[in-house]
């Protein structure tokens, strides 16, 4: 195909090359991860853009159909709650990957490891230590005990190696300056890692030649890494620990991921009814009788774990589980009570906690945050409500988020009233002009805003950061909300090897 053919063929489709799709690409006034402000490709995107440029529009469309068929037939789905209850949806993976060069990633990786180390020290200090950070006034005590995630049931439950948060998902964004910021911590049951691994597998199938041109750090060892971490926190008495994944069941929205993790680890995927506690020991019911369980990677919330321990009405938990954990006969990961440390009201104190526990400056900065319970902050928040993002401290998944600049007057009035009623329930942050990455939109390519959820695994003897993580992309033009529950998609995220490293 010559270039003249390409152009005369115009929009008929078959002879349009992807490179032409990028011809009208508008960098806009945002930080674009693929292109410099002058529109020239950044160096780590050059190989990719050259290679994808050779694809015709028809070839790209065919890849999109293959992608959709693959995700559907592999059942890579999440379940939607609400109006379409029970409906299985796939998380749309954009065909264009996000690429992060080695040096940028090295800095992020160090910052993530540092943060998770400090958060684990904080949790251990709170639940199994002398509460020194509180005593020394680093975090106000009232803030800790008023957190929804603070759990009295967690006291006295040992965490081998001090690992209370074994799997962390730390949400990062890049601002207008291109720097990475921590948007929020997820220290309870962060989900999304299955999409990271599956996206890569599908990408390798769709574009084997292009992925082959790059030296991309792998992500498919996640199961082995998770298993290693879980075994590292087994009760000291277990010589060959049995690990299980505990799921609420097949109707949970993240069920695909639970099954994925069990399969990748070669662990049993159990529901509460498969487990039974006898004399502070946890067993699973098998075809040959009861078999002891040492480590439970649970993917249900604290309150559903144990109807006795939490005095709840829940039917999906395991009566006696908490007592068994407290007796040190089984390890529950992530530990009970982690919600206190990912409370958005505690988030502003994390840089201080890093300084306090590690004697280091935080490598990854927070987004500028206002705390409405501080009178001087409250004044700013109310005055600049239409310029800030307001978030409920205990929320996740983008629910309850109010983005000032795009909110209606009515929404602003409501949130203003709510803040005044219960200032502890909210924080306000400066709007981050999220970075953009080229994204396939219709028959073209346009910049769309992204965030990044890297996954951090803590073991009793170290920390491992999975290269990249889940890039979520807001497919609607101008939207800053990337949550899958709010119409977002995802991107395969490539962390490249340093040119000197061996792939």
């Amino acid at each position: 195909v010559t270039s003249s053919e390409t152009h005369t063929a115009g929009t008929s489709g078959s002879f349009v090359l992807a490179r032409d799709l990028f011809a009208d690409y508008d960098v806009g006034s945002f930080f674009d991860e693929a292109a410099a402000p002058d529109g020239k490709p950044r160096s780590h995107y050059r190989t990719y853009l050259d290679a994808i440029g050779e694809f015709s529009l028809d070839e790209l469309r065919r890849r999109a159909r293959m992608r959709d068929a693959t995700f559907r037939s592999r059942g890579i789905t999440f379940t939607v709650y609400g109006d379409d209850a029970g409906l299985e949806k796939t998380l749309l993976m954009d065909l264009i990957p996000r690429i992060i060069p080695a040096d940028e990633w090295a800095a992020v990786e160090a910052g993530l490891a540092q943060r998770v180390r400090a958060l684990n020290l904080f949790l251990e200090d709170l639940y199994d230590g002398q509460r020194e950070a509180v005593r020394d006034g680093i975090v106000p005590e009232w803030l800790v005990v008023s957190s929804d995630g603070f759990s009295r049931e967690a006291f006295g439950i040992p965490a081998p190696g001090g690992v209370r948060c074994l799997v962390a998902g730390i949400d990062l964004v890049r601002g207008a300056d291109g720097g990475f910021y921590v948007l929020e911590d997820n220290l309870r049951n962060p989900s999304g890692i299955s999409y990271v691994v599956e996206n890569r597998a599908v990408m390798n199938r769709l574009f084997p030649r292009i992925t082959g041109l790059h030296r991309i750090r792998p992500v498919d060892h996640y199961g082995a890494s998770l298993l290693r971490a879980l075994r590292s926190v087994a009760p000291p008495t277990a010589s060959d620990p049995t690990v299980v994944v505990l799921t609420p069941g097949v109707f949970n929205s993240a069920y695909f991921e639970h099954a994925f993790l069990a399969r990748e680890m070669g662990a049993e995927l159990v529901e509460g009814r498969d487990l039974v506690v006898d004399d502070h020991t946890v067993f699973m019911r098998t075809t040959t009788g009861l078999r002891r369980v040492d480590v439970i990677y649970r993917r249900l919330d604290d309150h559903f774990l144990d109807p006795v321990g939490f005095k709840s009405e829940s039917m999906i938990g395991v009566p006696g589980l908490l007592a068994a954990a407290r007796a040190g006969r089984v390890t529950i990961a992530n530990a009970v009570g982690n919600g206190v440390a990912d409370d958005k009201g505690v988030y502003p104190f994390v840089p201080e906690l890093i300084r306090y526990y590690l004697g280091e400056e935080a490598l990854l900065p927070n987004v500028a945050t206002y705390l409405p319970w501080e009178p001087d902050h409250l004044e700013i928040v109310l005055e600049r409500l239409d310029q800030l993002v307001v978030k409920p401290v205990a929320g996740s998944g983008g629910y309850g988020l109010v983005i000032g600049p795009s909110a209606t007057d009515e929404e602003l009035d409501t949130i203003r009233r709510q803040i005044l009623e219960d200032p502890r329930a909210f924080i306000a942050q400066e709007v981050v002009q999220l970075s953009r990455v080229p994204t396939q939109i219709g028959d073209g390519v346009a910049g769309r805003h992204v965030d990044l959820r890297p996954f951090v695994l803590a073991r009793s003897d170290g920390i491992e950061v999975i290269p990249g993580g889940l890039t979520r992309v807001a497919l609607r033009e101008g939207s800053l909300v990337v949550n899958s529950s709010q119409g977002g998609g995802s991107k395969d995220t490539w962390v490249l090897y340093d040119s000197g490293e061996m792939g």
Partner: protein
Amino acid sequence: MTMLARHAEDLFWAGRYVERAQDTARLLDVTYNEQIEAGPVFARKTWFDLLQVLSLEATFAASGRRLDAEGLTSFLVADRENPGSIVIAIERARENARGLRELLSTELWEAINNAYLSLQARDVARDLDEHPAQLYAFVKTACQTILGAAAETMNRDDGWRFLMLGVQVERAEMTCRLIEVHSRRVPADAHPTMADWSRLLESAAATEAYVRTYAASPDPAHVLGFLLLSRTFPRSVFYSLRAAEQILQNIDPESGMSEARRILGRMRAGLEFRAIDELLDDDLPAHLEALQTDVLDVATAVAHRYFRMAEGDLHLTAVRGEPAEGVRLPGGVLSS
């Protein structure tokens, strides 16, 4: 080898559902053709016989459908209230498999999921109206693809064994039903035509195997003997029972004579050491029904020994968990 009791049960039932879907398609295929040839007067009786053989008269009556080709095929293929319909069987198999993802190979899951998605995408009402045979062929192929993927990709552990145990148990039962529905229409003492018997053989995918064994002779004793007693044909009742017995022994080599193995062994021996004439001279329908009752007992014994075994081990000092109500349907909700 050991596995979660719930998983074993779900695999067992996934196997049964897939085989049930396939065999129901086979039954319908043969009955549909028979009733066309029988003419309108006998067609009703043919359909009613089929319902009786499947023990679904009451469910059918409750559905308010007409006892004709349209009413019956749509009931057995697509009725959501009929726990034995093909659509429901495939849906349940897929629901079970979804809860077993980490135990199944990706290819097996994809085969099950694709069967489900393709069936969902079909206009079943139109299929039944215009070309039912194509629909039945599709179901048979989809089920064979599933079982083929299982055979080619599944590790030969207890998961595989419980899946195949479900297939074999269901197949033994459904082959009995296939013979029963046919022998009602063509009593052994009548003068059947080759077409009658070849249709029965065809519905069990046995035509070629039979012809190579007995040549093309329409002898009822041979045909029935082949489907009941063949040592070599994988869909004969004897073959399925022996396979199920072997699977149980592999699951539990130390167990000696468990209840399920005892019943299976007795059934198998009852066929193995009996001449076909004895079966035919006697009351064949009664034999077939006795076999089906025994299959039910086998399933009950298997459930008792493997799916609820842990109950007996508990001497609990702590509180214990009851299965959550309404969280999930148990595998074995079908009346057999």
